[in-house]
């Protein structure tokens, strides 16, 4: 297998998107017409008869996919419930969204004192929070709220039914006072870090 073929093979394996001939040429620093031979060799190596992984020309370029006869097994992998329970980071992020919703990613990061992008991504993937439009604050960040899946998972009828806090009296129907307190404590913590 030529060096170029190996490079094209590896690129297609690690890419999360199909890659076009032009993109493969740019990445390997080879002229586009030199990419065709390696692609042919790979289409031959990765065909349905020979492999569980098949190279395919899709919209937008070339990409590997699981061969059709493995579809059932692969579907089982995708349907697998998330292996672990909620991480502490995810739980804390979820709690902030539940008590302050709607809330943006920058605000979650400010309150927690640490970037929370992966926790937000994880909660979105689990369907526990969802996109609820954009905030009017600078940069117009996306804001999040909890979902029906969240309320069913935690056995909560509606948002009013969130458990009481020991550090804060939850009397107001809006959450502005709680929000202000969380910001204050976060700033105190940041000032000392």
């Amino acid at each position, binding site marked *: 297998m030529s060096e170029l073929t190996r490079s094209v093979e590896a690129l297609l394996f690690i*890419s*999360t998107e199909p890659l076009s001939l032009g993109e493969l040429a740019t990445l390997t620093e080879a002229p586009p017409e030199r990419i065709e031979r390696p692609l042919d060799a790979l289409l031959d190596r990765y065909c349905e008869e020979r492999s569980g992984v098949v190279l395919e020309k899709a919209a937008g370029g070339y990409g590997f996919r699981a061969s059709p006869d493995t579809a059932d097994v*692969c579907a089982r992998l*995708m349907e697998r419930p998330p292996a672990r329970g909620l991480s502490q980071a995810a739980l804390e992020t979820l*709690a902030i969204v539940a008590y302050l919703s709607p809330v943006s990613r920058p605000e979650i990061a400010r309150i927690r004192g640490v970037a929370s992008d992966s926790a937000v991504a994880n909660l979105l993937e689990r369907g526990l929070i969802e996109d609820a439009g954009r905030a009017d604050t600078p940069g117009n960040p996306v804001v999040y709220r909890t979902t029906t899946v969240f309320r069913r998972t935690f056995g909560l009828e509606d948002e009013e039914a969130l458990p009481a*806090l020991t550090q804060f009296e939850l009397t107001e129907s809006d959450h502005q006072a709680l929000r202000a307190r969380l910001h204050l404590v976060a700033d105190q913590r940041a000032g000392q870090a």
Partner: protein
Amino acid sequence: MIVADLELDLDVFQGPFDLLLALILREEVELAEVPIAEIIAAYVERAYERGELDLESASEFLVLVAALLEIKVRLLFPSDEEIEELTPEQAEAELFARLIEYRRFQGAAGWLRDRAAQTPRIFRIGPAPLAPPRPAPLVLEFSEDPWRLAEAVDTLLVPPPPIDVSSVRRPLVSVDVFLERFRSILRDRRGFAFDEAVHGLDRLSQAAAFLAVLELVKRGEVAGEQAETFGPIRVVAVGGAEQALA
């Protein structure tokens, strides 16, 4: 040697010392991340290269570094228990133990670097391009305890313990005070002599005043004039003429 043009090459910062001070003042560089030992090493190295050490600049440097160090200690060790008085022997033993612990992790860091360099491992991070779509999430009713949510928010509502500054022997001098003082002088006059402006002040206040001048220079509000090395410094308002006309 003028302290201000001491060139530094640190992890968090590259450039002259006075710029670093200005950035710390503007909170663009975290003082807590600045390795002060490296600044001192750079200064000593410079002095050694030049083969001279003038007392004036050395004491200015010491005052500045001591102030930085004291503030940094407060930042890193908010609780006072950490800095009880130690005998020199205890301090040495403690320092020695810490160095040994740190060296171990430096060794481990080297091992990680070599391992990544030996075999670079690049793999896909994220879903496969043409993978089947993930089905709707499975709902496990009542599988989570809602009180854990309350607990998480309660933790975030507990204020951090206050920083005890009772052991700071001298009041920290605020640079802002000097910024204001110099600005008000420059509203009436085109310039002033730095030595006169700080006459009679203690060293720490003089250092703060100097930082204030550096800050004004950085902001383009004033320029410094010095006819000769070690000569008196005159601070002159930039664009003072236009302001006078307006």
